[in-house]
């Protein structure tokens, strides 16, 4: 059958089972938006393209499906870039469409023209400029395949307006996409896996260091199995939160710059690190030459470029985390007698001591402190909510003082650290999972970076609870200035913050201000009962800091506690 490019766009989205699209229209997208007008795809009209991209990202992180967004040429496309870079750094499957000026005008500095494929080349997994409508269906199918397979990531398709209007033959296809130059290796080499098991059985002070790859591959179950049969303690990265249940005795919490003492000590003293879907980022290793000096390293990852990039690896295993862990667990099981239950007794004792001596803590007085608020949210939701964060101190408190037991329940911009990510991502998360409570744990600075999406929440009746940990400053930067720049608070203190309660009310949403400890519980109860977006303005201690912390340039175990 003969279809226009825009109709093919709709048909291909249906083929990919896309139910929802986030974006903003524009001149060169008129044909596509006309086709969307009566298509069976829900459209969420954002208020800024960055918001649309983060919504698609939040949707993808919670559902595990590809998130889809669309923006017009030029400024629409450039507005999308932060969202693409955020998804790229965290390996989130997304397909982004951008309008483009007509093919005859490309390169002419036409109205609203930008070299979108050029600009986004390094912040996407792959991108396409469609020059001929005949290639459109193939490109869309490839894009979805690339976005979700291997190490996932965002793929962008730039669609000139004339291609949207041009007509060509279209037939639907159920065929698997084949790309000769792209064949991700998912299985994991059996010989390497056997070697790994041998090394694991001999280790005396092993640690599993799990990252976002575990969540992305759906390998949490397998991770838990591995830890339980080998009795090896587990620490996770920020991206790995929820990939291992926090209630397990084997859990060490997060490692790295704001990690727990015991996770960082365990890493530094370990004789074997089993890295699973993690990448030895600089926030994890701290001073790299002093990182885990006695440890051998097994590294499991789908992306060969992640292996051996920052640290020398003894046993690399390229493959999908879930697949590899399955095989690894089978092998461990076959050699059960090498993994006696109490063989790591001494190591467990040591860790227990570290945990007892250095628990996560904060000052418990009558002041309204963010850590207390997070604990109350945990109690009010029984740990079942989806927690999305902004960036800064709020992000770290959200990580430290809420406990994560399930994958895909903690969403944060880990790699890029994008302020303004949280609120739109929370909207996307709520759409993916309407039956769950969704919280955006926000800073007053970050929230203002995409605060306009309150209108999107209002228009679409999406219920997100925004917890503004309002310290009237760019807290995380202020903290560094306090600790390392003699409290010279250069450009970090706000005056002129809006009244967030009134802002919410202006959008016909709800707002509550909380200034005292005893108001926290009732406010949360009220917000949960409301079933529409609520902004909770918590006026917290301005000079509260995030501890523990490992300052820049020192080894991972030279950790500052903060509390004397």
């Amino acid at each position, binding site marked *: 059958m003969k279809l226009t490019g825009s109709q093919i766009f709709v048909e291909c989205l249906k083929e990919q089972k896309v139910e929802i699209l986030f974006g903003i229209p524009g001149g060169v997208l008129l044909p596509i938006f006309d086709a969307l007008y009566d298509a069976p795809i829900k459209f969420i009209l954002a208020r800024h393209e960055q918001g649309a991209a983060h919504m698609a990202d939040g949707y993808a992180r919670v559902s595990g499906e590809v998130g889809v967004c669309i923006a017009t040429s030029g400024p629409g496309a450039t507005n999308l870039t932060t969202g693409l870079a955020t998804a790229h750094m965290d390996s989130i499957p997304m397909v982004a469409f951008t309008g483009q000026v007509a093919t005859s005008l490309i390169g002419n500095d036409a109205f609203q023209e930008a070299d979108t*494929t*050029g600009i986004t*080349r*390094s912040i996407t*997994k*792959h991108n396409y*400029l469609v020059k001929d409508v005949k290639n459109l269906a193939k490109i869309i199918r490839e894009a979805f395949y*690339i976005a979700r397979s291997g190490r996932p990531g965002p793929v962008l398709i730039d669609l000139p307006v004339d291609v949207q209007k041009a007509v060509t033959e279209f037939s639907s296809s159920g065929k698997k996409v084949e*790309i*000769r*130059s*792209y064949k991700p290796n998912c299985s994991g080499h059996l010989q390497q896996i056997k070697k790994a098991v041998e090394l694991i059985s001999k280790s005396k002070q092993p640690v599993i260091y799990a990252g976002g790859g575990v969540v992305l591959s759906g390998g949490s179950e397998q991770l838990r199995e591995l830890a339980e049969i080998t009795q090896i303690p587990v620490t996770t990265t920020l991206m790995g939160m929820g990939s291992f249940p926090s209630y397990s005795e084997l859990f060490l919490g997060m490692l790295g710059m704001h990690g727990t003492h015991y996770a960082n000590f365990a890493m530094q003293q370990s004789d074997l690190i089993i890295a699973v879907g993690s990448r030895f980022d600089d926030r994890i290793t701290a001073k790299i030459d002093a990182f885990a000096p006695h440890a051998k390293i097994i590294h499991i990852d789908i*992306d*060969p*470029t992640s292996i*051996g*990039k920052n640290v020398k690896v003894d046993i690399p295993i390229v493959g999908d985390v879930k697949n590899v862990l399955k095989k690894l667990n089978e092998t461990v099981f076959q050699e059960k007698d090498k993994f006696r239950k109490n063989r790591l007794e001494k190591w467990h004792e040591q860790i227990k001591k570290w945990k007892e001596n250095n628990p996560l803590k904060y000052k418990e007085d009558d002041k309204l402190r963010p850590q207390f608020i997070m604990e109350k949210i945990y109690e009010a939701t029984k740990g079942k909510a989806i927690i999305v964060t902004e960036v800064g101190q709020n992000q770290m408190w959200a990580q430290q003082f809420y406990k994560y037991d399930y994958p895909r329940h903690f969403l944060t911009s880990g790699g890029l650290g994008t302020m303004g990510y949280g609120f739109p991502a929370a909207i996307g998360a709520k759409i993916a999972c309407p039956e769950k409570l969704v919280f955006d744990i926000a800073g007053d600075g970050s929230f203002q970076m995409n605060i306009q999406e309150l209108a999107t929440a209002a228009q679409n009746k999406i219920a997100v609870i925004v917890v503004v940990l309002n310290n009237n400053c760019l807290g995380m930067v202020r903290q560094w200035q306090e600790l390392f720049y003699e409290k010279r608070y250069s450009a970090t203190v706000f005056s002129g913050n809006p009244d967030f309660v009134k802002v919410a009310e202006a959008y016909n949403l709800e707002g509550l201000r909380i200034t005292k400890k005893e108001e926290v519980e009732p406010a949360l109860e009220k917000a949960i009962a409301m079933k529409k977006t609520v902004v909770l303005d918590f006026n917290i201690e301005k000079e509260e800091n995030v501890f523990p912390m490992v300052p820049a340039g020192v080894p991972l175990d030279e950790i500052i506690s903060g509390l004397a």
Partner: protein
Amino acid sequence: MRHTIVVLVENKSGVLARIAGLFSARGFNIDSLSVGETEDFTISRMTIVVRGDEQILEQVMKQLNKLIDVIKVSDFLNVRHVERDLVMIKVKANSSTRSEILQIADIFRAKIIDVSAKTLIIEMTGNKDKIEALIKMLQPFEIEELARTGIIAMSRGMNKTKIEN
């Protein structure tokens, strides 16, 4: 260590930019890069000469492989192969120097491909050493312009840098 890397890529627009971007974004230096079509018009072949220690090179190879449009990457370090570079040199020449320059060209088996009252263009293919030797010999006569294609390389015998199906 100097490595000659041969990369087979999809013959599409934008691929060169991806590869160049990969090198610049990661701060890898390229000595030379050449691109052309192959026996299969849907595939282009790039020869990239890079310098760096083993770890950097391993990262380069992996990053190249990761690009969606890259079909195959081979490092020729331990492969028996031939390398060629083509150079064109426009050198100043007058009646008193012309014959001496021609003699030098002759010794190097280089070709004269253009003559004018004041210049000669000399063309030669060879490996890096030979080309550098020729340049050195011509420098005293004043080189006006110099252009090189960059190295291309091919493995000897039946060793193939092709995609196996």
